[in-house]
């Protein structure tokens, strides 16, 4: 058998099941969902012909009331909560990743594992944990009430505060891992030189450490912000009535309110915002990193 033909045969043999699986059960359903966004909402929430942009108009807030800002609020709130959570995650992950990289080699794997293991438990269970801690009457809630942050009868959950905690808790490991990888490769000679050159540790960090860890940071931002933006569980379980994100808006059209085209349009917007976010990060990374490719 000629080598080329045999190679093709092997290629088909090894690649076909996986490619088929992804094409049939991921690409095809996604295309169907995207198509659904351009159908009309039937009388009871299922998509019908004709093709129309009705779902997008509704999503933009146009309807029986003229224009109303609810969905826009939800989108902006999603972006805001994602950015805030990503910022907090970064502030926690930087020192943590650096600290791990300074420990003796035999400890590092264990420490990384310690950071990652909580994220292996189920999302719902992690939220249950925080419900236990933040509920009314728990020591933490009592403490917050004594400080005057909340009314004595209220808990710290459900609230937007609880949602942010939940987001940070869920995605922290995704930032620690890439940052650690960056710190591990850190060129200490450069850092030492910078320490000699600049008086303050802060400017040493800015000029020597930060540029070197930038690729790790950017990878971390991608890994944190994308799933945080699409969050559903944390907002449903830990949020009250004022912290809804676009993932909840989309899910509700299929799980409670029945408006499939609107939900599909929302899903499309989610993907679009995600792609735009990636693009922005790419450009940002390139600017900060002096024209080096740092994202993806």
């Amino acid at each position: 058998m000629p080598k080329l033909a045999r190679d093709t045969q092997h290629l088909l043999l090894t690649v076909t099941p996986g490619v088929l699986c992804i094409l049939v059960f991921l690409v095809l359903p996604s295309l169907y969902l995207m198509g659904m966004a351009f159908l009309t909402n039937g009388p009871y929430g299922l998509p019908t012909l004709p093709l129309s942009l009705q779902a997008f108009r509704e999503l933009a807030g146009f309807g029986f009331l003229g224009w109303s800002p609810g969905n826009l609020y939800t989108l902006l709130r999603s972006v805001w909560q994602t950015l805030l959570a990503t910022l907090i995650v970064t502030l926690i992950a930087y020192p943590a990743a650096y600290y791990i990289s300074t420990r003796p080699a035999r400890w590092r794997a264990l420490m990384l594992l310690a950071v990652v293991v909580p994220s292996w438990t189920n999302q719902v269970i992690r939220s249950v944990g925080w419900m236990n801690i933040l509920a009314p009457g728990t020591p933490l809630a009592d403490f917050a009430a004594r400080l005057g942050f909340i009314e004595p009868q209220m808990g710290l959950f459900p609230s937007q505060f609880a949602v942010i905690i939940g987001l940070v808790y869920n995605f922290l490991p995704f930032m620690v891992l890439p940052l650690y990888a960056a710190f591990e490769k850190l060129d200490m000679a450069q850092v030492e030189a910078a320490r000699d050159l600049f008086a303050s540790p802060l400017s040493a960090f800015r000029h020597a450490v930060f540029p070197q860890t930038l690729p790790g940071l950017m990878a971390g931002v991608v890994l944190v912000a994308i799933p945080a933006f699409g969050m559903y569980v944390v907002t449903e379980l830990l949020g009250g009535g004022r912290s809804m994100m676009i993932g909840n808006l989309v899910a509700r059209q299929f799980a409670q309110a029945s408006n499939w085209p609107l939900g599909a349009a929302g899903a499309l917007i989610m993907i679009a915002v995600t792609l735009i976010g990636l693009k922005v990060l790419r450009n940002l990374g390139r600017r900060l990193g002096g024209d080096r490719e740092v994202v993806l």
Partner: protein
Amino acid sequence: MTHRILTTLALAAGLTAGIQPAVAQFEGETLYLFNWSQYMDPAIIENFEQEYGVEVVENYFNSNGEMFAKLQAGGVSQYDVIVPSNYYIPRLIESGLVQPLDHDRLTNLDNLMDTFQDPSFDPGNAYSVAYQWGTTGLVYDRGALGEMPASWSVLFDPQMNPDAPFAVPEDSQVSLGSACAYLGHGYDCQSREALQEAARLMLETKQRDNFVGFIQGTPVLQQLVRGSVSAGITFNGDYLFFKSEDPEGFADIEFVIPQEGAEVWVDNMMIPARAPNPELAHAFIDYILRAEVGAALSNWNYYSSPNAAAIPLLEDILQEPPITPTDEELAVLAFTPSLEGEDLQFLQQLWREVESR
């Protein structure tokens, strides 16, 4: 709790006395029941399983919207019996999600009271048979709020409750209906202006610091007894059910029908259009329609029975408020309007606005 054991025993005795061999036709089959949580006596399920030699798989929903969405998401071919409320019945029929009932298979249909024999939402019981009926009212913790009037102002007037946590259901029609009643338009308000006003009130209410979220009638009771919620909207039977389970915890928790108007509802058994086993579904509905089963059901879940033949077997507690409303209460109770077409979409848009802001 003792009364429940007694009725269960009575039920079991009644069944063994009249064991029918005729039901072997379903031996080994499975019935998929999609019901509200805390709504079905486990003993009734066990007895049905034994008598018919079948297995019953129970799944639960917390709101009509959830049930409707689940049917659309494939449930239409996976459940044999569903239990929607009156205002969802026309839209279930029109969207083709349910199938007509075969009255020849429902030998006990005549047990229903006259009121339920030909309901406005399903003339002639073509698709549905009443399961239980009850009311939806205000529930609050006297310990946290003090003595309160029978009024929706407990929820919607910030002066009545400036700082104790409260919730309203995620069911748009029930929440907006209650707001409508508070505004003086009646619980069953339908004009767009009234609904819009109610939605605005709901938005303001939602922005209050002590609003904790959208919580349905059954779970809100659990939160009340735990103290994480001090006021909400619930159902009369669930209230009495949990109160009888935990009299101490519920000593200060009050259920009232607000004088501005509130909901009376009927939940009904229906069969999804592509149910896996419609014959067994009919047999189950007919079983629930038996006098002693209907009575056992009400005696367990504390809701009013639509079954005339079951009335003599009901406990006394079911014959008085809050289960049997007083005449004054009956005067202000109304069905939730059954919406369709643009009216339904209008309401859904309003509610989306309330939820998302």
